[in-house]
């Protein structure tokens, strides 16, 4: 697939395949087009050539709200909460298309991220980075997605929170949700990945299972810092 923000391509022929309940991890240097890839999958920018299929159906012309209806959830890298809405309202917005599920899903998300219970009436803008990341993931989970796109969920978090988030990602996947995730903490992320994609300059450089990429000396040398 080729695509970018206007007519100029940032992605120059990326190719990724992920099965329904797998964890896919995209790693690569800054500016490689990792975020751009996720945005393209989520219908936020132009696909100029090639196609994106979800369950065999072409989806690259669909707007985000229809992708949400089809079971896709997206947690952006930045600005991933509604700062002036309370934690609870943030989560409610996640289930905007399924208002009948709000109560049941709120309980599930609070179970999943217990620290949010106490903060539920506080504006999300007042939370710490880690808590905000929980709100962001919680919001996406509220729609009960079958595929979750996460853009650097651990960026800027302390190691403690980082492990917490990776742990949650594993749990979400164990519940049957497919994950496509961009990560800077490549080693940790590839360790939980079924598929790994090393992206550079808008193209796949290496594509293999997470374990194989971790074991590959070429990948280690150029992308995992030795």
């Amino acid at each position, binding site marked *: 697939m080729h695509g970018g923000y206007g007519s100029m391509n940032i992605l120059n022929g990326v190719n990724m395949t992920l099965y329904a309940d797998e964890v896919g991890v995209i790693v690569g240097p800054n500016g490689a087009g990792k975020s751009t890839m996720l945005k393209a999958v989520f219908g*936020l920018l132009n696909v100029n050539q090639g196609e994106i299929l979800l369950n065999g159906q072409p989806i690259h012309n669909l707007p985000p*709200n229809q992708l949400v209806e089809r079971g896709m959830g997206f947690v952006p890298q930045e600005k991933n909460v509604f700062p002036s809405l309370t934690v609870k*309202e943030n989560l409610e917005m996640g289930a905007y298309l399924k208002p009948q599920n709000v109560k049941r899903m709120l309980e599930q998300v609070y179970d999943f991220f217990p620290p949010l219970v106490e903060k539920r009436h506080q504006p999300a803008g007042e939370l710490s980075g880690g808590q905000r990341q929980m709100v962001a993931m919680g919001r996406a989970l509220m729609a009960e997605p079958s595929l979750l796109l996460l853009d650097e969920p651990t960026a800027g978090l302390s190691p403690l929170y980082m492990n917490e988030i990776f742990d949650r990602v594993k749990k979400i996947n164990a519940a049957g949700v497919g994950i496509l995730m961009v990560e800077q903490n490549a080693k940790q992320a590839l360790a939980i990945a079924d598929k790994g994609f090393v992206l550079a300059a808008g193209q796949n450089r290496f594509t293999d299972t997470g374990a194989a990429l971790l074991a590959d000396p070429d990948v280690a040398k150029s992308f995992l810092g030795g």
Partner: protein
Amino acid sequence: MNELVFFINNVVIAGSVTGSIYAIGAIGVTLIFSIMRFAHFAHADIMTFGAFMVLLLTTAFPAVGASIGVPTALIMLPLAMLLTAALAVGIDKAFYKPLRAHGVKPIVMVIGSLGVTLMLQGLIRLFSGTGGQSLYVDDRKEIFRLALPFEGVRAPIVITEPQIYLFVITLVAVVALHLFLNRSRLGKAMRAMSDNPELAQASGINTNTIVAVTWVIAGALAAIAGTLLSLDVTFKPDLSFFLLLPIFAAAIVGGVGHPYGAIAGGFVVGFAETLAVFNWNVLLRPFRDSLPTWLELPSNLAFVGTEYKIVVPFFILVAILVWRPTGLFKGKVI
């Protein structure tokens, strides 16, 4: 005591009337800004349009109110709100939506809204004429004089029927808006879109729907503000246009994009204006005897003359922009 009554009549009541109208106008401006990120200069003339619809409907069916005992104009208000909401949505479809689709800068939208305001003004004048017309077509404007039960108080507190309706309707509108924004799914989605439009879209919120809802609310509120203003004075095609500056001042004072700020800002600007043109001589007169003889009280002790009232919101605006650019409540910086 007579002086106190004078103060109540000329500051408390007059300020609340002005403040309420500014507040309702400013809420519309601020909501439009929070969703579409541009200053909607045509808002005042949408207010005029709403009042004009009430005038047309009242002229067509002048006797409806008498049977219920309410001014006909008030009975026509809900209908006028609907028509004005439809106009606002229509204007958006015809003029602003194509601009948005091109991804233009906010300033282009602002200029576009200036064009819309000129067009609306022309159209309304074409049908209404340029003179003033009372919205009380067949009804009589009730004036209540409440005498205070104190010795030596001669002057009564004067309040008119439309002023009472104005306070009630403002209160209802503000409470309804509060409940809508905080309790309803659509209202929360509106706040969400104001916070972060991309994430709102990523949550499955249809942003086109939210834009339309915003215009419906802004249009309906504009109809209320324009009608209440015209009820209090008379309908004139340029009446609301002169409120554009104070209404924007109110929205900015409160913190742009912040509905409660707009309410507070409306009353701040309304009262500041009233206090500035109030003749303080009246309040000082009882102490005349205790003042030193060389201090002669001038007969008019207002801060500014009534004809310069418009400088007050302008001054407040500049002061706020200098000292607190985000407004009283923390709004979006423009």
